């Protein structure tokens, strides 16, 4: 490497010129300190938000899930029982008309001209 002697005045002038264009080490330290503070603040906020989420989740989910599930089960049971009951009801209606027709056939023929009832529709 080749060393070139530079006059002290020129050297300090050049250094001043450079320094005026760059942030000082002290400023850098301060910036880093500020950033660190920001990070720590955000970390604290994150932690508190997280615990808030946990709290809300704890508070809500088990109770509401229980209600939903039992309601769904109940609705399902009710729907199935209703449908089954309706099946029986409709079949009974058919059998009732069968019995009515049978009775009418045994009656004396005076009412024979009555119009044919039809199942309700």
């Amino acid at each position, binding site marked *: 490497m080749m060393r070139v002697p530079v006059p002290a005045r020129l050297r300090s002038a050049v250094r001043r010129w450079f320094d005026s264009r760059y942030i000082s080490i002290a400023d850098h330290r301060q910036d880093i300190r500020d950033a660190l503070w920001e990070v720590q603040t955000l970390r604290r906020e994150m932690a508190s938000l997280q615990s808030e989420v946990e709290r809300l989740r704890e508070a809500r989910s088990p109770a509401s899930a229980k209600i939903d599930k039992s309601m769904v089960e109940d609705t399902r049971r009710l729907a199935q029982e209703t*449908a089954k009951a*309706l*099946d029986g009801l*409709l*079949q009974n*209606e*058919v*059998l009732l*008309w*069968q019995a009515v*027709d*049978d009775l009418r056939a045994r009656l004396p023929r005076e009412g024979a001209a009555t119009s*044919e009832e*039809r*199942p309700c*529709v």
Partner: protein
Amino acid sequence: MRVSWSAGRLTFRLDPEDEITGKAADGHPVKLAINACTVAGAPDDAHPDLFAVAAWTVVAPWTRRRITFDRAVSAEVAAALHDGWGIEAGPVGAEPRPAGPVLAISYSGGADSVAAATVYPEAPFVHFKRVPHDRVPNRWPHYRSDVLAKLARRTGRELTVVASDLEYTLAEPRPGYPEHHAVAAGALLLADRLGLGGLAFGYELGSRWLGGDRYLLRYTPDNPMWAPHGAWGRLFASAGVHIVLPVGGVSEAVTMRLALGSALREHVRWCLTGTDGPCRTCAKCLYKELIQAAVERRPLDTPIPADHPRARKWLRPPPYGGQEMVEYGLARVPGIERTLFGGALDHFDATEESTSWLDRCYPPALDEIPDPWRDQAAAFMRADVGLMTEDEARRVETWGAAPGAAPGRENALR
């Protein structure tokens, strides 16, 4: 049983001897849900025999001794009911209905009816569309009859869609046709308007000759549902609407091949639940996938895992409906031993050679197609499918027979 029609609404009343639980023509017990249903678009001036036969497709399972119609029927229809079922039908007093010139296809959109449509490219379609019943809650909304009707419209064929809730007259097994023939109720009522002399169904070899679906699972030349000389065949003929089975002599492998090779390929849909396409997970999709994979000679492509309940049905020891097609698939699908059908291999020694009869047409099926439409179907089968040899035909005629036993003849009557 007493039946009456009013503006497309069928109402029926049980006689003292009739009961809620009856039997369909294939012997299956069926329970009545309600005694009224509608068939939309039924003309009021249809021939009384058409009203009578359409009503019979619904009320037959629950009628024990006699049926009284709200208008006089022909002696021919009354005789067919008497000879076929032992039922006294009346009042009698109408001229019989002469058969018309037109053959329509009862088109469901599945592979079998598409194949039937391929045999008769000029035949119009009648499509049965299930609609909800006004008094029976619809617990089966996954059945997408709207999708099937839309696909039928896209075929571009002359089409009549008949909307009906008649399937809800059946409480058990579940809503469905009380008799298989109820799918034709709308076509029957419209027969005068459409000039019908015949109605073609997609019922294939298994249903017509092998006692398939839920019937006897053996050779059934006198099948009461589908033989022309069976109870239903004679009843339809007596009303001037002959039952025609264009693909009655070929297996579901052939109908699959014909359907996938036809111009209607894009509109084929055997799945009743899918919307944008077949669901691929219902029992029917699985069965048809086995057949399609066998026809296309490719590995099985199904999302159903081997331990799924739907897979189990095909792992039971035989016999069961559709067994001939399971054998056909086992012999042909590459890598079948690594699929959910692997366990079924234990029950069969199926080879391509032992199942090759299912690739050809059983000639007697062509002989029983009514005269005006026989030649076209026979020419089609000779050209596109090929006829069974005598040895192959014997495979049909000994199907399901116990070793050493003669081919069975079931009683055509109940």
